[in-house]
Each structure stands twice: as structure tokens, then as C-alpha cells.
């Protein structure tokens, strides 16, 4: 379990995160949602250890990150996988080399063993026949699959995704969502996804944390988000015309 306690973070005197307290459970897809500028990305980067909180603590399965010695912090980071918004694949490396990269850096496996694992995860994300292609030669959806494969190749305990559906068509977005959910359950990892895509919330939102202006405004699951009276949440959810029409239809009993 990841436990966040009274997390504060700011830049140049401006407070971005204002006392966030929540938990993220193992084997579940946890979503951080909110409008642009609500502090989602800063929160995710704090969880990743890229930003140091000004106040508060984040603990991973009982180990508080800020209290760990530097070497143990690095060891903990090696247990984290990350899927970036723009995939962040190394553009000078092929798909195969990208996925093999964490294995080369952190294991003493022979090349054959590494390749075996690479093929296994590429197969798991349904990506075949692209091993020797460069990231620029494959589609956005395929790049996301490679990014997921790279994130899980070392069998991490924690998976973080920053807007994994960004720039994808709705159908591919659903495929990526479901892939992340399946991997979360299969590998029994803690997955935290930063998104503002309501389709993702509907598909995989087992726990949802809603941020507004740096505060944790609401938390619940996908069945509760449509029943809440919290105005900020309903404004966010029903900012989409589609959801607005669904709600109106429900009210009219259609």
C-alpha cells in the first residue's frame, strides 16, 4: 500500500499541493483526476520521488521514502515503473532495446535471458513484429504499449502512468486502459494513473482521487463518482456533453 500523509509541495512560494492524505491499494488501478492546474502531475512526481515534499510523508509498503538512506531510495525507485504522457521512449534505441534497457541497467542477466523476458512482455502488451523498429516508426498506441512493456519488464511493485491515453483515439485508449488494468491484477502491483479522461474513470476507476486547487476534494470509486453531491466533482464529470446527455436521459427516465 502507498500511504500519503499531509503532503505539501510548492514552487517559488506558490503552494501546489495543500495537505493531501490518501492511500493507494495493491492490485487496484488508482486514478488521480482533476482539471488542468489542480496539481495532478506534481502529486504524481512526488509519488515517484522526482519532487521532494515540503511537508508530509509518502510511505511505500511501510517504508517512508524521505526517511530512507539514499541507496535504499534508489532501490525503491528500481521497484517503480513509469509510463510517461509522451511515452518518453529513448529515440535512438529500437523497441527491443528500449524494453531491454532497465534489465541492462539493473540486472546481471545474460543477453539471451534478457531477450527472452523482453519478448515475453512485448507479447504481453500484444506488440509483435516491431522489435527492430525505432519509436518514430511506430504509432502512438504502439509507443504506449512499448512504454508499458518497459515499465513492467523488471516486475515492479508500483506502476505510475501519466495520462496514458493522451493523444490516442478512443478505441485505442480503451485498449490501453484495459491492458493497464489486466497487468495490475496479473502482477499484483499498485497502479496510480494520472488522467482527466472520464472514459478511463468509467473503465478502470477502482479508486479515484479528485484534486482541486491542490486539495484532495473527493475520493471514491467509479460507481460513487456519479452519485456524489460534491459540486466540483459533478462540474468536472458533467463538463463532457456526452455524460451530461446520459445524466439528462436518466433523469427523464429514457
Amino acid at each position, binding site marked *: 500500500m502507498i500511504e500519503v500523509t499531509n503532503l505539501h509541495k510548492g514552487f517559488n512560494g506558490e503552494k501546489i499541493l495543500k495537505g493531501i492524505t490518501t492511500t493507494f491499494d495493491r492490485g487496484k488501478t488508482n486514478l488521480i483526476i482533476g482539471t488542468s492546474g489542480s496539481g495532478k502531475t506534481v502529486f504524481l512526481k512526488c509519488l*515517484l*520521488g*522526482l519532487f521532494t515534499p515540503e511537508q508530509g510523508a509518502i510511505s511505500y509498503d511501510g517504508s517512508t521514502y524521505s526517511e530512507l538512506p539514499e541507496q535504499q531510495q*534508489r*532501490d525503491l*525507485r*528500481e521497484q*517503480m515503473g*513509469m509510463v*510517461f*504522457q*509522451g511515452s*518518453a*521512449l*529513448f*529515440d535512438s534505441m529500437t523497441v527491443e532495446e528500449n524494453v531491454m534497457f*532497465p534489465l*541492462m*541497467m*539493473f540486472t546481471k542477466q545474460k543477453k539471451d535471458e534478457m531477450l527472452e523476458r523482453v519478448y515475453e512482455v512485448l507479447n504481453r502488451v500484444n506488440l509483435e513484429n516491431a522489435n527492430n523498429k525505432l519509436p518514430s516508426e511506430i504509432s502512438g498506441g504502439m509507443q504506449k504499449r512499448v512504454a508499458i512493456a518497459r515499465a513492467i519488464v523488471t516486475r515492479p511493485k508500483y506502476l*505510475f502512468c501519466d495520462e496514458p491515453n493522451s493523444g490516442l483515439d478512443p478505441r485505442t485508449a480503451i485498449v490501453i486502459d484495459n491492458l493497464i488494468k489486466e497487468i495490475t491484477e496479473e502482477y499484483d502491483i499498485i497502479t496510480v494513473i494520472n488522467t482527466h479522461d472520464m472514459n478511463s474513470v468509467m473503465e478502470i476507476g477502482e479508486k479515484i482521487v479528485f484534486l482541486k486547487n491542490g486539495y484532495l476534494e473527493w475520493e471514491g470509486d467509479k460507481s460513487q463518482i456519479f452519485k456524489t453531491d460534491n459540486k466540483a466533482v459533478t462540474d468536472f464529470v458533467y463538463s463532457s456533453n456526452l455524460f451530461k446527455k446520459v445524466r439528462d436521459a436518466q433523469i427523464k427516465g429514457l
Partner: protein
Amino acid sequence: MFYLDDIGRYFLMLKGVFSRMTKGSVIRNLIFKEIDDLIIGSLGITVFLAFFIGAVVAIQTALNLTSPLIPKKLIAFASRQSVILEFAPTFISVIMAGKVGSFITSSIGTMRVTEQIDALEVMGINSLNYLVFPKVIAMLMYPFVIAIAMFTGIFGAYIAGVYGGFISSSEFLTGLREEFIPYHLVYAFIKTFLYSFLLATIPSFHGYYMKGGALEVGKASTSAFVWTTVVIIISNYVLTQLLLS
């Protein structure tokens, strides 16, 4: 204050470059790749420039020697001194600040923009060591480039002097050996070693700490070229004062 802040961050970056080393087998491959990109890839333009710089120095010297009392062999002597002391180490390095420097800044800057550096950090990799250290090591080969530039520059001077009808071949070879001081080569290579370090680290600094998008990558490349050139010129003055005065 702004410049002091940048200077401070530059030295902190250097500390980061030489700490928490990346796995040996990985860094070895990166060094070979950087040698190919930064050193081998610069040989062509260096040879081309050095040849013509040497040729122009010889012609300019010849055209300014109007007095019959001054021996023609001075053309070779002046060309050798100019090429070895300044044109090969300093002039070529300023050009390399444009070629190698902008390549380093734009490649690291693009990695910053596309979150590839964040990806390295998340994996627990010291991104400064991974990205900059191989460049610093690869640039240790830079003095070889300058040695080739010296040879080519003097060869250019020979071709322009002899085939331009300014000096005979034997006079040129005599002048070339005239009052040769080996310490001048030492001085030139001390400068070159310092420049190689500056050429690897200053553009890396501008790329690594850039913020923004594609436009800012371009601005960072320009800024890297300007600052690398400024630091090379200033350190040239300081080293000349220290080593030759």
C-alpha cells in the same frame, strides 16, 4: 546574480557527472557511440577548415613580406606558429562549439523536452552521469582531431605557398623546422584538453537544464554556442598568459 547562479549550477552539474557511475558495460558502449558522433563525425570538417586556414595564413604572410631582406622561409615559420599556437587549437575549437556543442545541447535538450531524462531519473539512474560522462570521456580524443588539424593546416600552407609560387619547397621545409620549440606543442595540447572538457560540459549544461519546448531547444543551442565560445576565448587568454609569458 543570474550568472553566478548558473556558474554554481554548472559546478554542481560537474559533481553529478562524476558521481554514482552507470554500469560499466553500458557506459562503454555509450563512450564508443559518442566517439563516433563527436570525434569521427568532426574529422571531415576539421580537415577541410584546417587545410584552407593554413593556406590562407601562408598567402597572407607571403603577400605582407615585401622587403627583400626578409627571407622567404619566414612564410613557413609564420604558418607553422600560427597554426600550432592558435588556429588549430582555438579557431577549430570555436567552430566545434558550433558543430559539437549544438549537437550536444539539442540532443540532451530534446531528451529533456520529451521526458526521456525524467524516465532515466525514475529508473534510479544518475542521468547526468549517463548522459554527460560518456561525452567527457569521448572528448579526450579531441586532441587527436587537433593534431590532424595542425598537420593539415601546415600541409595547406605548403600547398598554397609552393604551388602558389610564393616559396620553394626546400625553403618551406627549412622554415618549417626553424626555431621549433617543442613546448609550444605542449602549450597547444594543454589548451586543447581544457577546450575538450569545455566543449563537452558547457553545451551539456545548457541542454540538461533547459525548460520549455522545441523553440527553447533552439535557443539553448544558440546560448550554448555563445557561452562555450566566450569561455574558450577567455581561457585562451588566461592560459596563454600563464603558460607562455
